[in-house]
């Protein structure tokens, strides 16, 4: 009675261990800033078809990735939401010198899940006719900082208790998409597909209102001989990858 159960258990254990080894051996572990999730999933699939290397994506906030990388996280490549974190990692010898490059320039958009809520002049924002405006935490996220800079440039004094901040741009999007915040600043890539808005209403924030959101990629020190990781960074600069990046509304 006990034997079949035990051998079954051992078989499952063996399968799990084998699986773990496979994942570890064949892939590039990529830390991806939340705003780049959608294009990167397409690029990773294309990359695997083109080269046979598998890119395993972890999505999150750039600041969190920085802390994790400094504490030995097993990432090979970082696709940051800013250019400061890669620069800092290179200066601290946690990333390969000269490997950083701007893979995308982020575009900020004021977005509402409600169609027609935001007009071409962003009247809803300028007249403060909302209960909650969502933005990513300016202390933590580059898109949040750009949003705060935009509010300052427009000389809008939004009362602090009307501003809700997401830990990263994905959470900010969730606040707005669920309708809990009427509007907010998100990355254009989150609401943009193939040259048009996927839902709701929006106002493109003029790039003159905030410092450019340069998103840099960097090869992390532990992967400086990892052929698959280097291939991924090369692939990101290819016309095929750039076309995907641009289709989500990013600049190159």
């Amino acid at each position, binding site marked *: 009675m006990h034997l079949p159960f035990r051998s079954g258990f051992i078989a499952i254990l063996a399968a799990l261990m084998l699986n773990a080894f496979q994942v570890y051996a064949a892939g590039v572990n990529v830390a991806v800033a939340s705003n780049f999730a959608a294009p990167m999933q397409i690029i990773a699939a294309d990359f695997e078809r083109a080269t046979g290397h598998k890119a395993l994506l972890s999505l999150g*906030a750039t*600041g*969190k990735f*920085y*802390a994790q990388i400094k504490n030995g996280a097993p990432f090979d490549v970082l696709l940051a939401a800013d250019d400061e974190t890669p620069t800092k990692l290179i200066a601290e010898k946690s990333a390969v010198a000269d490997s950083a490059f701007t893979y995308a320039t982020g575009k900020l958009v004021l977005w509402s899940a409600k169609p027609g809520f935001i007009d071409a002049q962003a009247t809803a924002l300028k007249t403060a006719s909302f*209960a*909650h405006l*969502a933005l990513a*935490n300016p*202390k*933590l996220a580059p898109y949040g900082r750009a949003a705060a800079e935009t509010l300052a440039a427009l000389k809008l004094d939004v009362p*602090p*208790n009307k*501003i*809700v*901040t*997401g*830990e990263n741009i994905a*959470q900010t999007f*969730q*606040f707005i998409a*669920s*309708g*809990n*915040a009427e509007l907010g600043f998100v990355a254009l890539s989150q609401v943009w597909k193939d040259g048009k808005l996927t839902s709701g209403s929006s106002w493109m924030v003029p790039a003159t209102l905030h410092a450019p959101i340069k998103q840099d990629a960097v090869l992390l020190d532990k992967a400086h001989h990892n052929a698959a990781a280097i291939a991924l960074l090369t692939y990101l600069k290819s016309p095929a990858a750039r076309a995907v990046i641009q289709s989500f509304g990013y600049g190159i």
Partner: protein
Amino acid sequence: MLTDADLAAIWLTLRLASMTTLLLLLIGTPLAWWLARTRSAWKGPVAAIVALPLVLPPTVIGFYLLVTLGPNGAIGQFTQALGLGSLAFTFWGLVVGSVVYSLPFVVQPLQNAFDAIGERPLEVAATLRASPLDTFFSVVVPLARPGFITASILGFAHTVGEFGVVLMIGGNIPGKTQVISVRIYEHVEALEYTQAHWLAGGMLAFSFVVLLALYTFNASGKRR
């Protein structure tokens, strides 16, 4: 050391935990009593629902609360009909979330305490012509006192330690929804490790003292 925003987060957390514990005792006591006494076929399903927050990741609870509290969700439409607007990003939204999140930590100790009383004291009270309500307050509550104390401490402490749910439905507004755990997270993410240590260390000490008090109390209760 601690900034004004840190102190505001501490004060907010204490207010949230107190309000949540109070509401949980009001909701949890009849619920636990029913669970302890009923022979209904609904006992299993209700007990399972009460225990759900024990096993669900807080992000699942937070995500569903965000959707339910929102303008298209069931609770959101109800609060909007009452003219209250959406509860997300408000203190009362956090209270709703915390009540759900800490429910099993209050209901289960109470239910165990009620179970332990058994039929006998209730039968005796009935033969002495005590009304059910009188029996409850004169017999059950004194006998279940350790259960009430355990439930209050666990409900309070668990709410203080809450993070994922508040992160999802709070919106991190200083003084309004920015509780200690979210504040610590922000400090850590912004690499302000010194400030994070002050709050995190305080939280660690607080949690230890609370649990120490609970276990010391339980041990002395058993010896009596």
